[in-house]
């Protein structure tokens, strides 16, 4: 965060567009690729991540004076894992279809870089209100990116959107887009489009190097070796 004094609205919009967690910061790629086969799955995933992010950001910013600095990462992980458990129970009780199709990626929200990254970068040094706005902005930015990606994959790959038949009868659906290679391909295409239309240079950071957790999770050791640039 270069600008220290952003209004809460700016914080919210920042996550939504300028620092979109998926398309600009490239965090949380695993669920992004895996749960975008249909738009309804993606929507469920996006909202689950938003809910966990909101809960963890608020609690962590409330506890920022209490948590000792040396053990902050384990504390964050426990807080996040608790919210993940709550969210997956809510989904299991009220949205069984989505719960089943998200499957393993629900517990894996715990290790989603976006959530730990926001805790480390934002929630532990900002007020509760600002952290909540940041969580909503980042969460909706993530959901938006998921919806764009899943819409492309579902419409072209299956001819439907949110389960509604669109072009399945007109054009033969290209099932490859719903499978793993299609996920990688459409993601690459989306980032290339963002690079094309953004004023910034193409993102040089890839994977763990772009992760804000890099310094905390031992990436500093890698930088010394000149890897993972």
């Amino acid at each position, binding site marked *: 965060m270069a600008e220290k004094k952003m209004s809460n609205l700016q914080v919210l919009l920042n996550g939504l567009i300028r620092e979109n967690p998926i398309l600009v910061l490239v965090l949380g790629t695993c669920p992004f690729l895996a749960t975008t086969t249909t738009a309804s799955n993606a929507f469920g995933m996006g909202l689950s991540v938003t809910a966990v992010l909101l809960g963890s950001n608020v609690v962590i910013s409330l506890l920022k004076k209490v948590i000792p600095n040396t053990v902050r990462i384990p504390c964050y992980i426990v807080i996040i894992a608790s919210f993940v458990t709550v969210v997956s129970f809510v989904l299991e009780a009220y949205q069984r279809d989505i719960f089943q199709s998200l499957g393993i990626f629900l517990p894996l929200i715990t*290790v989603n870089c976006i959530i730990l990254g926001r805790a480390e970068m934002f929630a532990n040094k900002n007020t509760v209100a600002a952290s909540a706005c940041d969580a909503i902005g980042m969460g909706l930015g993530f959901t938006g990116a998921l919806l764009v990606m899943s819409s492309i994959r579902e419409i072209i790959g299956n001819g439907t959107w949110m389960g509604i038949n669109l072009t399945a009868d007109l054009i033969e659906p290209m099932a490859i887009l719903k499978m793993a290679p299609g996920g990688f391909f459409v993601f690459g295409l989306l980032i290339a489009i963002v690079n094309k239309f953004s004023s910034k240079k193409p993102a040089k950071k890839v994977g763990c190097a772009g992760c804000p957790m890099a310094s905390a999770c031992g990436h500093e050791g890698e930088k010394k070796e000149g890897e993972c640039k």
Partner: protein
Amino acid sequence: MELAKNMLTILLSAILVDNFVLSKFLGICPFLGVSKKLDSALAMSAAVIFVMVMATAATWPIYHYLLLPNYGYMQTVAFILIIAALVQLVEVVMKRFVPALHRALGVYLPLITTNCAVLGVTVLNIDEAYGFGESLVNALGAGLGFMLAMVLFAGVRSRLEAADVPESYQGLPITLTAAAIVSLSFMGFSGIVEGIFK
């Protein structure tokens, strides 16, 4: 014989058909981040194999004997804590007793705590209702599959270095497109395991 066949099926499926990186999308961050050079790709995947098997060996008994009777809902919280503690422990022990191995794998170990492939394999073993032996084999297969994908992709990326890529496709987009093609080639393995044991 039946047991060996079962184990081999799980192992080969985990390596080739249900490859963690290329078909299950687990562990994408290290796959994209550490696959630039062959030696770092190898070291990272060796550390992943090691932690996956250790984590499975620790989480499976804890889930079945401690959590399942009363505290099944604590699964996510307990597993991530076990993995984090285990990684720390392994690092300390390794540094003390096998310093050479620690120098090779050390920097990758803390990174692995937040690797979704490790938490993923422990949770999948529970979801699939594998026994203890099957879980260990599945973890080993998942790790070996991760290594295979990393090594193959490191080769692909060293070729990409020399390629003339359009400006907006430089960096991540071309890497992802290459990953799509590698993943496409892995789809050719679908059905192979059933075929072997027919």
